[in-house]
């Protein structure tokens, strides 16, 4: 890539290459039957094997949000059930999707980038091409599809566990009764909120897997290059998750 003043266009170039790669990948979607085994393999690796860490994170974020909300709501003017009204929508709208996405950037994105990067630097991708396989479709489609399909599943389990964690901590910690918490959560519940959360997690799934595939696929320069791709994929994914979060909130809410 050019450096100096011409390097200012590097991000634009990267965007172009990323878009072309995605077009190419989705252009081979008709070969999906060939990638079927690979797709389910990735769904298990990206989705199901991530459930424990996602649940753990969600439980703690729900619990901490509950305790901190209870700590802040000291005025006797507010009913205690307001804690539920704050924690449940926080989990559904923001924490369930975003915290999960950040966790998966580390767990899934880094793995994908390192995997593809290593395949690139050890010329396994070239070997695939030599065998006549469409390496873009074969490597990228299962990973991105698995991310898009499994992230909402992870989001739903994160929200359930997060709210459950909040309720348990509120009840055991003596902040408020479980029934009060649920009453409060019901008071301001909007059925669109979880749908919005699902849309968000689906977008985040696409952002994380596609960016790490892109970074991994275009790795250069040996082991060091693999390390760089992994770092770049994590950082870029995080930034684009935040951007997508804001964009979705502005457009859909």
């Amino acid at each position, binding site marked *: 890539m050019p450096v100096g003043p011409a390097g200012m266009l590097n991000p634009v170039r990267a965007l172009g290459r990323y878009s072309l790669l995605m077009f190419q990948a989705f252009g081979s979607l008709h070969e999906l039957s060939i990638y079927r*085994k690979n797709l*389910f*393999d990735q*769904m*298990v690796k990206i*989705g*199901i094997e991530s*459930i424990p860490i996602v649940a753990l994170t969600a439980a703690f974020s729900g619990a901490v949000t509950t305790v901190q909300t209870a700590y802040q709501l000291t005025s006797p*003017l507010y*009913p205690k059930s307001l804690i539920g009204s704050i924690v*449940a929508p926080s989990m559904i709208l923001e924490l369930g999707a975003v915290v999960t996405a950040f966790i998966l950037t580390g767990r899934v994105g880094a793995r994908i980038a390192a995997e593809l990067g290593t395949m690139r630097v050890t010329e396994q991708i070239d070997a695939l091409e030599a065998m006549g396989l469409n390496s873009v479709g074969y490597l990228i489609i299962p990973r991105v599809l698995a991310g898009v*399909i*499994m992230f*909402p*599943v992870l989001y*739903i*389990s994160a*929200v*359930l566990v997060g709210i459950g964690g909040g309720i348990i901590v509120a009840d055991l910690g003596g902040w408020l009764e479980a029934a009060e918490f649920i009453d409060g*959560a*019901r*008071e*301001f*519940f*909007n*059925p*669109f909120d*979880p749908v919005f959360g*699902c849309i968000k997690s689906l977008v985040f799934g696409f952002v994380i897997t596609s960016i790490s595939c892109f970074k991994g696929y275009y790795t250069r320069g040996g082991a060091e290059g693999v390390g760089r791709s992994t770092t770049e994929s994590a950082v870029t994914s995080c930034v684009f998750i935040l951007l997508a979060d804001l964009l979705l909130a502005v457009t859909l809410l």
Partner: protein
Amino acid sequence: MKASNELKVGIAIILSAVAFILGVRFFEDIPLFKGTYDLYTVYDDARGMIVGNAVRISGVDVGSVQEVSLDPETNKVKVRIRLDKQYIVKEGAYTEITGIDALNAVQMVIHQGPPDNPPVNDGDFLPNRIANDLFTSLTESAPGLISRSDSVLVGLDGTITDIGELVQPGSDLRRMFSSFRSSADAIEQLLSEERVRIGRVLANVDTLTTALGETTQGAGDSLAIATQQLNELLRRVDENLAALENTTNTLDSILGKIDQGEGTVGLLINDPALYHQMDSTLENMNALFLDIKENPVRYMRALRLFDIL
């Protein structure tokens, strides 16, 4: 391996889909498996009502607000609510938004129609009545409140003047207070002088109550027997009273008969002829006694004659 992966993914997706649907229904406060129905109503002012607010009948949550939409042409607010099927709304029901919008704690209340009316159907319209919130009703009733508080103040003024006269130096109240104070002083002095004795008295009372407590405990059986005897006594008194009442009744009927002129006594009492006869007889007897007193010899002679016989 392939089948196992597919199965895992399938189970995960189905479970999360079920959790999603049930979770949404749970937080919407709609029963998880039972049916629901929708009704709608139109307000001029939704007063901060939002999707998810509770709908209540007689204070019980029966559903929730599903949709709040503003009609741009009429500027009226259409509110769609979803109710649990087990709660039936009768025709003639009307809705009301209650709560305090300043705290964003509003809810819809459905006032049921007459119990004999048929139930409303899915998608029906419910009329409404806007209830005043706390601040509005305060503002509306303010003029009345002010005039009332005005008259209260005038009355209070008179009362205060009266009190002022009452507490003038030399008034009865003053004198009463001063004598009350001297009494209190005297009592206080007495208390301080007799502190030891009062202490002793109280100690004695304490011992006495303790002893009494013990006795009551010990004498529980005798008390029970005494109570039983008392009960027996009361029962007998009761019987006696019943007999007495019987007697009184009989007496009453006898007196009634007498009054009616039945029987000998009745005739005696109710026949004036007899009384007059007796009266004249007594008069004659009186005259006779007078005569005897004046001329005893006339009769003594006769007596003597009698003696001889």
